[in-house]
């Protein structure tokens, strides 16, 4: 079953800006799906239309087979949204925000309170339940937004850059939490600028640029398409004057740093053999960019070139 099905979706704003130019997208039930794209590509507009915050110009959107035009109430009840910006009333108590949101979805006060308590514990907000939301730290506010989106037990959770501005420790704990709720059956759609996040979490991916879907595939096959990888090597001693790496693209960034581009299938062993032969000792090695990032940039650049 499809959790989300979008057909020929367009959106032109009143000022004439065409944010979506007829996108088609489908997300399977239970998927962890990444919707990526540069700033202004149309990600937030797409999410806005799915969640009824933005009015579409044309096209159809179905959530769990329910057309948002035919039965918007039913479609909305399937969705939980974590928006990009903090959008709660900072003067309200944390627990009231959750209980109120559950009430909007028709959950009576008692079960809403039980569900809110459960989420407050799960997301480490229990101690802050009676504090006004504005007094929370940035990371806690992000967690509050996730708790609020989950309070009515949605089947489809949409996260619009949920880890923006969140420190790495908290980001990783949020990844674990999201993986856990996905494994329990919640379909997740994620937009993020941290491509490492998408690569780690998502099974399928769509890349949107200038209102068009430029790629829609599964993560594995996309990453397999990567034909080269760039590595940064820290070298113990300065490179000898006669240093060379035959048939390999490389350049030295400084006396102790080497950037090497390897084609898929070249393997690291060849590189290390060549380095050993020339008595070059490597202290450490890392990817210049993560694999998805390299592909993402290549796809977006390709899309730019065709425009």
């Amino acid at each position: 079953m499809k959790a989300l099905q979008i057909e020929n979706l367009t959106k032109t704003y009143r000022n004439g800006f065409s944010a979506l130019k007829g996108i088609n997208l489908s997300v399977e039930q239970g998927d962890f799906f990444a919707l990526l794209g540069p700033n202004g590509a149309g990600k937030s507009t797409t999410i806005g239309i799915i969640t009824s915050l933005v009015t579409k110009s044309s096209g159809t959107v179905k959530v769990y087979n329910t057309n948002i035009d035919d039965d918007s109430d039913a479609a909305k009840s399937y969705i939980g949204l974590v928006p990009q910006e903090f959008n709660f009333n900072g003067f309200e108590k944390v627990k009231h925000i959750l209980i109120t949101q559950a009430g909007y979805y028709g959950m009576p006060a008692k079960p809403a309170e039980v569900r809110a308590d459960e989420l407050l514990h799960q997301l480490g907000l229990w101690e802050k339940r009676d504090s006004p939301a504005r007094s929370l730290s940035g990371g806690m506010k992000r967690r509050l937004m996730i708790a609020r989106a989950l309070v009515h037990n949605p089947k489809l959770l949409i996260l619009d850059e949920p880890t923006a501005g969140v420190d790495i420790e908290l980001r990783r704990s949020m990844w674990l939490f999201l993986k856990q709720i996905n494994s329990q059956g919640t379909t997740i759609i994620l937009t993020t600028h941290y491509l490492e996040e998408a690569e780690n979490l998502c099974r399928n991916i769509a890349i949107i640029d200038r209102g068009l879907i430029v790629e829609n595939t599964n993560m594995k096959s996309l990453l397999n398409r990567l034909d080269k990888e760039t590595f940064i090597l820290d070298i113990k001693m300065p490179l000898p004057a006669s240093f060379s790496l035959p048939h390999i693209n490389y350049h030295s960034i400084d006396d102790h740093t080497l950037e090497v581009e390897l084609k898929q299938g070249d393997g690291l062993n060849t590189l290390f053999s060549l380095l050993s032969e020339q008595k070059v000792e490597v202290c450490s090695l890392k990817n210049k960019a993560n694999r998805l990032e390299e592909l993402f940039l290549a796809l977006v650049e390709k899309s730019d070139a065709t425009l």
Partner: protein
Amino acid sequence: MNSKLRRHSVAFNTLLIREIRRFLRIWPQTLLPPAITMTLYFIIFGNLIGSRIGQMGGFSYMQYIAPGIIMMAVINNAYTNVASSFYSAKFQSHIEELLVAPIPNYLILAGYVAGGTARGLLVGLIVTIVSLFFTHIAIQHIFITISMVVLSAIMFALGGFINAIYASSFDEISIIPTFILTPLTYLGGVFYSISLLPEFWQNVSLFNPILYMVNAFRFGMLGESDIAIIPAFAIIFICIIGLTSFALYLLNKGTGIRN
């Protein structure tokens, strides 16, 4: 009760409770000022000046202005509550909590209007209690009194909602109360009987809806009015229907809240 109706009823109650909790939480801004302002009205206009004015419409001046002052507090607070609450929700974007939820627009409107009406009526009750320290009030027509104060609060709560939909800054939610609502209230027969005005201004006053509310409410409390009661109710009903239809039209269109 079917499940959809039950869900909607929970959603409406939730919104109403949130609105009530909001104005109770900030009671020094919402409940205290009208109590102080209206006490000053009673002291200055009712006691100090009123004692020199003598009787009006067969009642002491204090008794005569009491219903108008109560009504003034009700309509101002009903209006301001919805205007500021809905605009704040837009400004802080937490209106999105409602827009993404399965709540029909008419329930969003009903929830905010009920919240504004609740504040208007609570402030009305506070001002009535304050007035009892200054004068004796005996309600003559309980049904007219209650129905008029409730309908007036609803009407002005609707007005506040429409104001908030169009507002794009906090200034814009104070313009109408300052430049339209306050003059209409002062010219709506709160402090005087329109029979004291020249005929031309009496006729002009008839275009002021607040005149009908104040007088119908005064009739309910004192049994005295400058205008007929049935047309007063008819006008208020028509205004409520018109404002409700317009507010729903704006909500359905997404004016000021959806891109």
